[in-house]
């Protein structure tokens, strides 16, 4: 480990040196240095009524910050990259905790030598749609699954490429012990002639993960506490295979992927245990099983009309560096989500988290655009478990109408069914039912000035006792005023108009109909963007299976900077 750290420091130092030389000597030798900075600063203001309390930040730390500075340099046929990551009393990694750490978050060197392609360092990559392997970064959730290792690729002719990689997954400023390696072959073949052209892009991939001894010893000790019926012999090595293809013909695109994973040690959050006093307990339980995923999407796009249909079946496909990892930690792969990604505040309140152990999902989307004046979008998704119990269902419609370049009207309705018991592990919680009509009106006052109004009303269903599901019904309104190209001001409020079962109770012992206001100022100047916001945001318990994680309410001031250079 010491050797590794030393090596890391030397490499980081040499990368810095290279940047230094380049900056010093300017761009005469043809190299380019570019980069970007993203920084967030949070100021936490305790508000116990909405639940913005009981975390180190609200109680005593008061300030938190995250920052990433990314630099990349290209010269002499090489690409170098270096990223500085900083977390000071940050709530990103663990929303109820505090994380402090800083250092080199990423470096890499890439070189193409004729048909041979070499990359080493912290690498982001994927096979197919990511079902068996995806190394990626998602800053809002602080997922950084970069593979710290090496990747070699070779061009077999013009349209075929073969690649192989090996490494270990990044864990903040550390690295997980288990080793991940794999490879893939991807091709592209086109047929036909002008007008009747069609093409296929087939691929095959394989990934292997080998557990380290310490992780295995811990699994063995856990399995040793199980009864004979529940005990199993864990596996060091797990292989995942995947075959995929994209067929494109005229306006049609059809993607299909089938993946199989050999026996793996998995953790079932709803596992049933029989204890020594023969009582039954439900909780995290290790088991061993092979897994499968079938995924396909078919889309059609022609002259203003777009249709897509998707389907996915998942069984026992939780693929992690080690089965002990929880929530979104240590994920080796990525399963595509099967519900619409919503952006309006209320329509995005309930989200269907991907179920790794068992899910059957379908989604259909249709869009039609008439002369750029009128457009319509409808989306339907339905997700069940493998026993056909409903997890999530959504029908989303949206109509847009543009009038004389000065007005744009948008309106629609969302209808949802959300299985809170499974997604958030809330016992006995009824399926949350919502109906949300919404509108969005944009008026261009002048060439530079515009104003936008948003409104959403989420009507929640009621349980047997007449209490609204979860937090009950919400009313949301937003006004946004923009002065191009620099300024945007927004004022919004989310009002718990008809408090439900989970709404906070105030001092009088009544459910409180609380307001969650928010003010934002955005300023853009060239490649720099700044924002300053005062936020009150409602809390939510986010659980993946049996492991719960409280995303506390946010109350405070947030400052962000984005810059590209």
């Amino acid at each position, binding site marked *: 480990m010491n050797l590794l750290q030393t090596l890391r420091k030397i490499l980081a130092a040499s990368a810095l040196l290279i940047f230094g030389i380049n900056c010093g000597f300017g761009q005469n030798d043809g190299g380019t240095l570019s980069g970007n900075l993203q920084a967030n600063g949070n100021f936490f203001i305790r508000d116990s009524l909405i639940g913005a309390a009981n975390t180190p930040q609200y109680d005593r730390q008061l300030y938190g910050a995250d920052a990433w500075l990314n630099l990349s340099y290209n010269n002499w046929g090489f690409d170098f990259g270096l990223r500085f990551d900083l977390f000071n009393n940050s709530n990103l990694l663990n929303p109820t905790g505090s994380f402090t750490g800083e250092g080199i978050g990423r470096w890499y060197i890439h070189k193409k030598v004729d048909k041979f392609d070499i990359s080493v360092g912290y690498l982001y990559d994927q096979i197919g749609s990511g079902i068996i392997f995806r190394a990626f970064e998602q800053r809002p959730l602080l997922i950084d699954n970069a593979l710290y290792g090496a990747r070699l690729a070779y061009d077999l002719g013009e349209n075929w490429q073969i690649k192989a990689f090996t490494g270990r997954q990044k864990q903040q400023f550390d690295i997980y012990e288990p080793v991940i390696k794999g490879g893939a072959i991807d091709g592209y073949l086109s047929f036909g002639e002008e007008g009747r052209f069609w093409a296929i892009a087939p691929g095959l991939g394989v990934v292997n993960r080998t557990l380290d001894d310490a992780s295995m010893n811990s699994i063995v000790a856990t399995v040793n506490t199980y009864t004979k019926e529940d005990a199993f012999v864990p596996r060091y090595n797990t292989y995942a295979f995947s075959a995929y293809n994209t067929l494109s013909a005229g306006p049609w695109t059809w993607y299909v992927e089938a993946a199989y994973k050999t026996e793996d040690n998995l953790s079932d959050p709803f596992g049933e245990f029989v204890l020594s006093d023969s009582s039954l307990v439900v909780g995290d339980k290790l088991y061993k099983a092979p897994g499968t995923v079938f995924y396909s999407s078919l889309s059609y796009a022609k002259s203003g009309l777009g249709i897509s249909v998707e389907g996915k079946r998942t069984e026992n496909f939780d693929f992690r560096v080690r089965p002990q990892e929880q929530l979104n930690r240590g994920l080796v792969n990525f399963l595509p989500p099967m519900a619409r990604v919503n952006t309006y505040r209320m329509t995005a309140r309930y989200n269907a988290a991907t179920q790794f152990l068992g899910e059957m999902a379908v989604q259909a989307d249709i869009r039609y655009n008439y002369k750029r004046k009128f457009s319509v979008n409808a989306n339907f998704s339905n997700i069940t478990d493998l026993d056909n119990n409903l997890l999530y269902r959504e029908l989303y419609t949206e109509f847009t109408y543009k009038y004389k370049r000065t007005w744009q009207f948008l309106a629609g309705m969302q209808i949802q069914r959300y299985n809170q018991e499974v997604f958030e592990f809330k016992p006995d919680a009824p399926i949350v039912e919502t109906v949300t009509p919404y509108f969005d009106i944009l008026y261009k006052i002048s060439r530079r000035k515009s104003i936008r109004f948003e409104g959403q009303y989420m009507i929640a269903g009621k349980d047997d006792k007449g209490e609204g599901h979860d937090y009950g019904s919400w009313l949301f309104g937003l006004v946004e005023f923009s002065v191009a190209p620099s*300024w945007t001001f927004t004022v919004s409020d989310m009002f718990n108009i008809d408090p439900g079962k989970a709404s906070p109770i105030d001092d009088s012992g009544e459910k409180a109909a609380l307001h969650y206001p928010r003010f934002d100022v955005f300023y853009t100047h060239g490649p720099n963007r700044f924002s300053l916001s005062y936020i009150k945001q409602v809390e939510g318990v986010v659980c993946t299976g049996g492991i719960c994680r409280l995303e506390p309410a946010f109350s405070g001031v947030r400052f962000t900077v984005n810059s590209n250079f």
Partner: protein
Amino acid sequence: MRKVLFLFAIIALSSACEEISPVITPVMEVESICDDPAPITDQQRQVLVEEFTGVRCVNCPAGSAALEELIGQHGDQLVAVSIHAGSFAPPYPESFDTLRTAKGEEILSFVGEPLGYPTAVVNRKKFPGGFNLQLPRNGWPGAIEQELQEDPRVLIDIKNNYDEATRELETCVTLQMMDDLSAEESVFLTVMLLENNVVDLQLTPESSEPDPNYVHKHVFRDVLTSAAGNLIQDAVTAGSFVQQSFAITLKEKYKADDCSIIAFVHLGGDTKVVLQAEKESW
């Protein structure tokens, strides 16, 4: 524009700067109640498990059940304490008592917040692959197994002297160094008061309403040292003895018969590792 920024600054500053301060507990001069130290015999390696839990944590009863199974397996070699702290610990308005304590919260901050619950810290050690000292349920047996392999570097003896009339408890903790600990940066002693079988509300997977008959095991009630432990200033060379006395008056609500004292020795500096733990009731 300046006015807007000014407004933000006013909002920020007016409601800010309010912090929850740490609890200061100056070392009380307690009269020594210890007898001359005698060599401690018949003590094996004993591992400390600090379970962090909360009455609003629906998955925690399954964790507690797993911990009870482990106690059944390892007996006295496992010293368990359940600390009600963190995001699920605030009591229900109907709770009979609050199991959450400021000192428990302080201990949680000291060892670090978990990613999810149920969670426990085994001997305050960071195990490979772990996110911090906190381990999810399926990591406990492996960590305990691994810790039991080692020899104790200290042996601990607890002598309790409880007066039923005054509800006063005097405790003498004797440490016998089995290894030279003077090379370590610092050595600490923590002494806690636990109460077993506390009946109070707990959310369980069976119902959306908390169970009023739930039996909470080895509940953390108080700490007789400071939350992060008392620094041992005596010589800690191999073979030496260290003795410390403590006194506490049990609150009326505690059932004295279900109370016990646990003591553990841990390191300071880079590591917070626990060397040995011991439990004694009276």
